């Protein structure tokens, strides 16, 4: 059994005058409804160009309605370059240069894939996806050794 922890800290000294903001939280990424840690993950790095259409970051190839988590970061340093993040056909939001996101992913529908597209200029990105299950896609070679 693996152990994966995700910690966040959010701070601001001047967002609200006289009241510094300090949020911190830690969670352990477990299998659906269990205290056993997730054991499947993908992690990688790539670059999106503005000529690209929406690209699937990850298809919903796991079991529907399960515990999964997605981390995604826009590694661009140009403030005008952003990545549009889409879940199925809903635009979640924009990751501007240096932004990151971390979210649970329910795979609530068989087509609930994550899509990303660069705007303003090319965007390098890093990602990690932690999953309860995953179904390998069929080989294009069919059955090689019947």
């Amino acid at each position, binding site marked *: 059994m*693996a*152990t*994966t*922890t*995700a*910690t*966040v*800290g*959010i*701070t*601001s*000294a001047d*967002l*609200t005058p006289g009241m510094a*903001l300090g*949020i911190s*939280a*830690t*969670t352990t990424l*477990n299998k659906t409804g*269990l*205290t056993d*840690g*997730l054991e*499947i*993950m993908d*992690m990688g790095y790539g670059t999106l160009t503005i000529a690209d259409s929406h690209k699937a970051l990850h298809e919903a190839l796991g079991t*529907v*309605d399960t*515990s999964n*988590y997605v*981390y995604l970061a826009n590694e661009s340093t140009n*403030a005008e370059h*952003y990545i549009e*993040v889409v*879940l*199925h*056909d*809903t*635009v*979640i*939001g*924009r*990751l*501007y240069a*240096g*932004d*990151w*996101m*971390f*979210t*649970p*992913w*329910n795979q*609530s*529908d068989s087509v*609930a894939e994550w899509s990303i597209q660069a705007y*303003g200029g090319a965007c390098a990105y*890093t990602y990690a996806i*932690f999953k309860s299950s995953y179904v390998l896609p069929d080989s294009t070679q069919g059955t090689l050794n019947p």
Partner: protein
Amino acid sequence: MATINATVTIGSDIISGVNISNTMTMTKAGTNNGLDGTTGLNVKTVQTETAFKLFDHSEGDPAKRASKVYIRNTGSSATDFFYIGFGEDLAAATIETIGRLYGSDWMLIPWDAVAATTHDIYAKASTAESAMTLEFIAFTE
């Protein structure tokens, strides 16, 4: 203009050497100027399986789309959770559902607060048998 920093650290032994650490400064769309709006930190406790709204799209500016939202399940249950998603139709197999927040789980995502109710963010508890609590805050332009 305010300065809001958010740091994430993810460590895992699924694969040797996984250690993600990243800090972002939340900025307005297309600029280096910091976000300076917020809903403030909210806490809501429910004991119902009826969906409830966390963020209304009117809290963001549809022309300025760099908002962020943070949501955390303050509980400790490994079995009870909140569905989080867009609109009230949150369940196991609805495309509006983003994911489940189990006890201690948190999320921080960009929020495209366009001028439409389809971008209102809701939560729905998985059980009405025990009280469950969310804390949540939006950072807006």
